């Protein structure tokens, strides 16, 4: 694996364009945790013509619901959740100005099309590496929907958060390429 690329927030379309599938990155700055319930609430708010709790322009979303922090820690364990569950909401959210998504797993073609249109990069963090990933999180602040508990919308201050580009803003897909490369299965 090549040396990781250090990237910082705010994360713009220009920054996004520089990244390609397979790039290992270390993210420093602020990223925003939101998952199923927060996405539902945000897209419902948009449909009702209401303002969202934050301006998503040039921000990164992290599909996450952490464990509670132990006393003295900024956050509990905090690995990525399955991104695909957010796909129904994602094109609407990307139109709000998000330029980076962090999660794990496959995305629909509608999401990839919206990524290309909006210049968005999709990063994967390692699923299940939640205690390791927590070491890169310095601060966790709930921004909205505290009643959702682990599903609240929250701001994470991160330093060298490890991720890898799995779908770039041109729609290239690392999962597809690597799976084909290592596939020896015949007949199924």
């Amino acid at each position, binding site marked *: *694996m090549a040396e990781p690329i250090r990237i910082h927030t705010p994360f713009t379309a220009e920054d996004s364009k520089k990244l390609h599938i397979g790039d290992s990155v270390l993210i420093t700055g602020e990223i925003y945790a939101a998952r199923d319930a927060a996405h539902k609430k945000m897209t419902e708010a948009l449909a009702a013509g209401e303002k969202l709790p934050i301006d998503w322009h040039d921000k990164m979303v992290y599909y996450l*619901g952490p*464990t509670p922090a132990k006393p003295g820690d900024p956050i509990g364990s905090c690995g990525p959740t399955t991104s695909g569950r957010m796909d129904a909401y994602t094109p609407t959210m990307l139109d709000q100005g998000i330029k980076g998504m962090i999660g794990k797993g496959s995305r629909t073609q509608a999401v990839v099309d919206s990524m290309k249109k909006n210049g968005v990069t999709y990063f994967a963090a390692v699923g299940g590496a939640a205690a390791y990933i927590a070491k890169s999180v310095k601060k966790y602040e709930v921004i909205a929907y505290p009643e959702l508990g*682990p599903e609240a919308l929250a701001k994470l201050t991160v330093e060298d958060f490890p991720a*890898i580009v799995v779908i770039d803003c041109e729609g290239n897909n690392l*999962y597809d390429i690597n799976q084909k490369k*290592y596939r020896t299965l015949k007949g*199924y």
Partner: protein
Amino acid sequence: MRELDAKTITENVAEMCKEAAYYLPEDVVAALKKGRETEKSPAGQAVLDQILKNAEIAKTEDRPYCQDTGMVIVFLEVGQDLHITGGDLNDAVNAGIAKGYVDGYLRKSVVGEPLFNRVNTKDNTPGVIYTKIVPGDQLKITIEPKGAGSENKGGVRMLVPADGVEGVKKAVMDIVLHASMNPCPPTVLGIGIGGNMDRACVMSKIALTRAVGSHNPDPRYAKLEDELLELVNQTGIGPQLGGTTTCLGVNIEWGPTHIAMLPVAVTICCHAMRHKTRTL
């Protein structure tokens, strides 16, 4: 008649929930290390390194290795000569889950109603409790806290007898290929063959309480476990980013079925394969 205080059950379940969340079973760690040695993809190797480092941090610092600390499946084997005193058995188990998840800083991931108003119960209860009455005067408790990322990708297929062994393999591979990298591979597969639709699913969960690398005592099913493991590791799915270590183990449980049926249930478990057993 032997007596067992409900409070003892609660205390034990609470401890088991915490231990299951913090300490990745040694058989899983050993299988991950073996996978790291043989993994061909550099990206896959990096993922396995991170997963192993993560397990070490979790174990040393008493932290959940995955943030999805799961919904708790509980298998109770209650001796018919045992008298539980001081409270209801199911309440005692759920109180243990609540205590373990609150005191252990584990994530509360359960909503009380699934469709219309998904409100978090805030203590990770209720668990999914299966109770079996057995001879003797002891209580055997097995917990299997199961995360949703992998649980969402399982499936059941109602095959017919003519489908045979090849039909079973096709059904399993269809589920695995459809799940792809989403259930956080390397995975462990729990497979239930036979019974009826629900029994096959329960057997697929029981299969995951067995160690990785163990085999079904029936050599025909043991052989099928090995064949399926080899096939799954040929898919290229690998450790999330593509590669050769897609699955660490395949555990099959089987049971009697109807003359017209051949149900196959596949529970996919991520590498966070939590299970704990205690006998009280």
